[in-house]
């Protein structure tokens, strides 16, 4: 397929039209993309992937907008992947994160792509990791990832990012205690946004207490808590520095390799999961087909029996 070569070249030349079309096919999980992704993967530049998660409305998109501006001052070419939820009923989605990033809209060195979650749980989209590979091959660095932002169970972002930011803000009605435990444990950097509001400092010390309860080895990364307010250009420099400090930390002593091994494993698991689930479903339907002929059998007995047979047929033989 000569087209594959053309796409590969387009990506390496950072051609927006080619990238856009490939990202679209990746999002649609077009099987033709596998061959292309396989070729693109070794071409990735070492770019820091920065994941932002946190409840809706805390200011994730606004923060990304501000951080992109800071990166642009330094001349970096920046990527953004922002995920919004798909409706479970209609499959439709309103992708509005980039409204907050308008000022970068005509900057060719900022590539912003909105993704719909398309039924995937955990705050990301099924296509996210593949999309990251494409952006890394194009040389965008750093790349920001904004999760759907339910504030709950969105720990997936940790598995695809080098650096994970949990963004919180005062005035969301309740204290951090009410947040699901998971999300408070994944951050490399905690951001208390909307620092212009009164109770920001209270929230900051609440988080500091929470992470202070954990013991960190001296050689380990100690999570930081940073107050920001993009509208007032407050804390952004400090946040940018903290993000860079985490990158330096990862690059020292081979931690980045370890992290990237985890990220690559996650990519394998993600790809396998979909394939295996599909295989399972087909196989299971097949196994069930003959079994229900005359009467409805006890589903508990049935599932036990089927699992044994299934194990023999699919798992044990390999």
């Amino acid at each position: 397929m000569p087209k594959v070569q053309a796409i590969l070249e387009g990506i390496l030349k950072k051609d927006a039209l080619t990238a856009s079309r490939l990202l679209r096919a990746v999002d649609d999980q077009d099987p033709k993309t596998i061959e292309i992704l396989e070729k693109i993967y070794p071409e990735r530049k070492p770019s820091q992937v920065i994941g932002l998660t946190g409840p809706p409305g805390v200011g994730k998109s606004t923060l990304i907008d501000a951080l992109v501006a800071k990166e642009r001052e330094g001349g970096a070419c920046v990527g953004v992947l922002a995920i919004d939820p798909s409706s479970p009923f209609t499959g439709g989605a309103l992708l509005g994160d980039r409204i907050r990033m308008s000022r970068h809209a005509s900057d060719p060195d900022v590539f912003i792509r909105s993704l719909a979650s398309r039924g995937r749980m955990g705050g990301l989209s099924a296509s996210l990791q593949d999309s990251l590979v494409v952006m890394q091959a194009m040389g965008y660095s750093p790349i920001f990832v904004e999760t759907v932002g339910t504030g709950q169970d969105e720990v997936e972002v940790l598995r695809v990012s080098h650096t994970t930011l949990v963004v919180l803000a005062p005035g969301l009605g309740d204290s951090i205690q009410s947040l699901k435990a998971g999300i408070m444990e994944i951050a490399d950097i905690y951001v208390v946004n909307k620092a212009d509001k009164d109770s920001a400092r209270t929230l900051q010390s609440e988080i500091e207490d929470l992470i202070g309860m954990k013991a960190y080895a001296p050689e380990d990364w100690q999570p930081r808590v940073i107050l920001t307010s993009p509208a007032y250009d407050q804390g952004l420099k400090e946040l940018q520095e903290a993000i860079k400090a985490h990158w330096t930390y990862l690059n020292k002593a081979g931690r980045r390799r370890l992290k990237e091994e985890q990220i690559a494993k996650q990519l394998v698991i993600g790809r396998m999961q979909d394939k295996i689930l599909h295989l399972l479903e087909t196989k299971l339907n097949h196994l069930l087909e003959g079994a229900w002929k005359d009467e409805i059998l006890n589903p508990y007995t049935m599932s036990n029996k089927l699992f044994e047979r299934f194990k023999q047929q699919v798992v044990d033989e390999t």
Partner: protein
Amino acid sequence: MEKKVRLLIGKVGLDGHDRGVKIVARALRDAGFEVVYTGLHQTPEAIVNMAIQEGVDAIGLSILSGAHLELFERVLCLLKEKGATIPVFGGGIIPPEDIVALKKMGVKETFTPGALTDQIVKWIEDNIVPQSL
């Protein structure tokens, strides 16, 4: 996975009327499309750049300011310049004689006040195909 129609819906120029476009954007989401909404006051350059980056199947512009002829023309021209073949449609306050001019220019369809969102959805279903590699 089934393909989804992706659309860029936005406002160009100094036009603050966003009631209609928000209603349209929501209706399109509810019809099962993926809708990237740009917000107010975008330049034609920004619209085209966003449409390319977002890999959309069509661009829908809302213009109630009276500047539709210039703005649509600029967007179509920039798309051509960049080699992007993304169909453009839109709506707003557009006199009948200008609708003729816009269509001649290459705007695929226009919807004016009173247009039902069901009509808009139907038109997209009939005329916009999701792109592929």
